[in-house]
């Protein structure tokens, strides 16, 4: 099992007291499989992805990725996890505005010491970015920026791809195209994918689907 989550809990201090965002989540994901995470706004989808990606710390429970319990890792350990094992695609793309497209695609792979120029070119080609390599993020449309973010994620060959509403900023046609490309490339690399989405249509295209409601799996 690539990902095993057990009794995961997380709460935050809000203006009206403590808010329990995740109230005991148990789920698992095998390598090469895809899982859709659906739920309303505030249901805890992003929080769950942040915890699995090592961006935040859980209050209780265990997250084991590829045999390693990441809940006990320090900042450096979690940074290494994000560099080498897990990679995240955000709704806001999170590209580095001062690097051109080629440098953005190569960036995470370089950080992880796994940069392969041929693979980066192949990904750019597969995602229709070959003509955009010299441009900067501000010169690209939203769909193009998200494709760059996906290429950057996959260029680093992660074992687990986390995607948080990756097409939330795109129109329906572009969203469908981008998702097609992402799913194809994830399948090609053999990585597992966990994707948070509002859209039942997109969720239906993944191998499995779980629904979050009020911090619990429905």
């Amino acid at each position: 099992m690539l990902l095993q989550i057990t009794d995961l809990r997380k709460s935050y201090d809000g203006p009206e007291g403590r808010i329990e965002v995740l109230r005991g989540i148990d789920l698992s994901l095998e390598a090469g499989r895809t899982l859709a995470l659906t739920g309303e706004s505030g249901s805890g989808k992003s929080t769950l992805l942040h915890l699995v990606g090592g961006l935040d710390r859980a209050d209780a429970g265990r997250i084991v990725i590829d045999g390693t319990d990441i809940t006990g890792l320090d900042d450096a350990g979690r940074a290494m996890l994000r560099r080498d094992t897990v990679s995240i695609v955000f709704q806001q793309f999170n590209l580095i505005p001062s690097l051109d497209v080629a440098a953005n695609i190569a960036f995470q792979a370089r950080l992880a010491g796994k940069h392969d120029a041929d693979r980066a070119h192949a990904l750019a080609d597969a995602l229709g970015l070959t003509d955009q390599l010299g441009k900067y993020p501000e010169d690209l449309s939203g769909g193009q920026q998200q494709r760059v973010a996906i290429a950057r994620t996959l260029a680093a060959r992660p074992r687990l791809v986390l995607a948080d509403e990756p097409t939330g900023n795109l129109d329906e046609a572009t969203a469908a195209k981008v998702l097609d490309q992402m799913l194809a490339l994830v399948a090609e690399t053999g990585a597992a994918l966990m994707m948070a989405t509002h859209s039942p249509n997109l969720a239906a295209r993944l191998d499995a689907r779980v629904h979050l409601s009020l911090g619990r799996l429905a």
Partner: protein
Amino acid sequence: MNRAGLAALWSFWRRNPLQLFTLVAGLALATALWSGVQALNAEARASYDAAASVLGEGRYDQVVPRAGDGFAQETYVALRRAGWQAGPVLEGRFDAGDTRLRLVGLDPLTAPAGLGPVSSAGDTPLQDFLAEGVIFAHPGIAEALRGAVPDRVVADSGLPPDTAITDIGIAQRLLNRPGEISRLILSDTQPMGRPPLEEIAPDLVLQPSQQSADIAQLTDSFHLNLTAFGLLSFAVGIFIVHGAIGLAFEQRRAMVRTLRTLGLPLRQLVLLMVLELLILALVAGGIGVMLGYLLAASLLPDVAATLEGLYGAQVSGALSLQPSWWLSSLAIALLGTVLAAAGALWQIARMPVLASGKARAWAVASGRLRGLQGAAVAVLLLASALLTALGHGLIAGFAGLACLLIGAALGLPLILEAVLTLAQRRARGVRWQWFWADTRQQLPGLRLALMALLLAMAANVGVSTMVSSFRLTFVGFLDQRLTAELYLGVDSADEAARLQAFAAPRTDAILPLLSVDTRLADQPTQLFGARVGPSYSDNWTFIASDGPVWDRVADGRAVIINEQLARRAGLWPGDSLAITRDVSLPIAGVAGDYGNPKGQAVIGEALFRDLYPSVRATRFGLRTDDPDALRDALVDEFGLDPGQITDQAALKRFSLDVFERTFTVTGALNILTLAVAGFAMLMSLLTLAGMRVPQLAPAWALGITRRELGRLELLRAVILAALTLLVALPLGLALAWMLLAVINVEAFGWRLPMYLFPLDYARLGAFALLAAVLAALWPARRLARTPAAHLLKVFANAN
């Protein structure tokens, strides 16, 4: 990983060259001004050290003639025979072609160990010095000397500037003073039971080492003043750097978050940011060191002239590049960068990985700090008041000054915020309400540039008030003191007697300039014997006096002292001052004495002659209605060399020239500081212009044209500069008061009256507003020409 991280960080600067330029230029300018001043100080101190180590100035007790500038070699021989361990020195001015140099003759066998040339040539043994007639000369004059003397000349960079040193026999020959000695340098160890000096050589006096001209000590306050100005300029530059780094880090928050989500550990990221800044600091520091060298090289001749005019200190006019200087300059550039970046780095280090990537609203960020800032302002201003009122010494004075300036700078945004809020409330019409509200929103982004402008303008007002007040006082002082129409010097007491007999029927009054160097109230003091008459009683004014001052002095019943001695010794009219072991006199008056670092005391001529019968005047002031006729008579009939006569106008011109050169350096640093502040304003406005589009787009969409937006940007800069000027004026006057009443008293021992110069302030105000307009012109023009597509993008991104 590190390379990729550093490349990502660096890419920000590559995409924002203007911000990179601001950072590098700000740091380079700050380093240049600081290192330039340090180079000037280091060069001067190196010259003092050379004088002290090679010529023994200030290090050893000396025996000097009571009057005149030399005595017979036989007297020296008598002292040696009596057991006195002393080395003879002959010193004089020597003309080597067009070069006038100081020639010093030593006896290497009897001079205390360590004195004499430390030849860089290294191949000239002592025997050569003794037997073959070698002259060691500072490299700057060696060539000129080679052409003027038959002896072998060796260049020695260890010597003080414009100085040559040789065996005393050669010096006697070259100076045409055979068998003559200027002074004796005493060894530290002297045999017990040797006869007293008065017994063997009654015309000579012992001058203890601490009483000798300790140039380094005398000039300390001058150098401290320069250092303080350098520090102020550095602080203004660091304001720019702080602003540039703060803004860059704010804009990179999103990048920082992305880098961390992609797996770059926080510690590594902070280290990379530190490394990036250190690289930039080294580059900017290197440029700054080069600029500082050029600055120092251009100012050094004026500084050298000032130090020689004020203190008689010889300072090389050519700058040498000392490794310690450029290393310390680079170190200060690094330190300045660390100081300027510490806050921003601390914020990054504490930023949670999931924090908002958007640059925080500056207004909100500063609003949170407003209370803290107000408290800091109150504490600093209170500390300044306490240090001024209760502190003693120059350091306390400068600390008080620093607290005042920093407190005022921190208080400026609070004052501007209050004024802009009031303006917004009073504004009529929605457009002006928007304008004032938008100006308030700009304030946090511009506050560092405005603070730098405030400091520069206040320094300008303060220093120009101080210099102009000083000039007015000094000119008045020269008119009081330089009353004689002609001043002249003769070579001997006999000639002096003949001169007085010759001049008596041709002049209204003869004023002998009688003086000895002594110690009064434990202070090194020059004691004068005055021939009291209208020249003194009609012209001298006193800071404090008691009764008919000159009548009492003429009768030998009182003494006048200068302000320096009064303040240092705490003596004022009515107090008693011991002139010798047996004679004490009440102080009748305290006189201002500007441009003199030492204490002075004046007693009546008759009493002076009683106390120092062997001292004969060889310099005189002559009062006459027809100075030209008297000069002709002195030259043609008496046979005086024209070079021995100086007229009053020439003396005043010389003194004022020294004065003006003294403040050339201050003036240059003043203008540079103002230029740096103007640069800070330009760079802040340019940087902010790029971030202004989202704020201006709604106003444009609602009907304000781009041209009008540009005009309003210009107006905004002028209003902010004008408000800053209004704060700078009282701050500058407070600064002037502290310089005149606190720093000057502590540094030089005299207090100057303060005068106001409204026209100068109006001119400065006009320049400041012009600088603000020029600084705002380019960014405003850019805003006015922002393509509509850029403004529309704001709305596209908002959806």
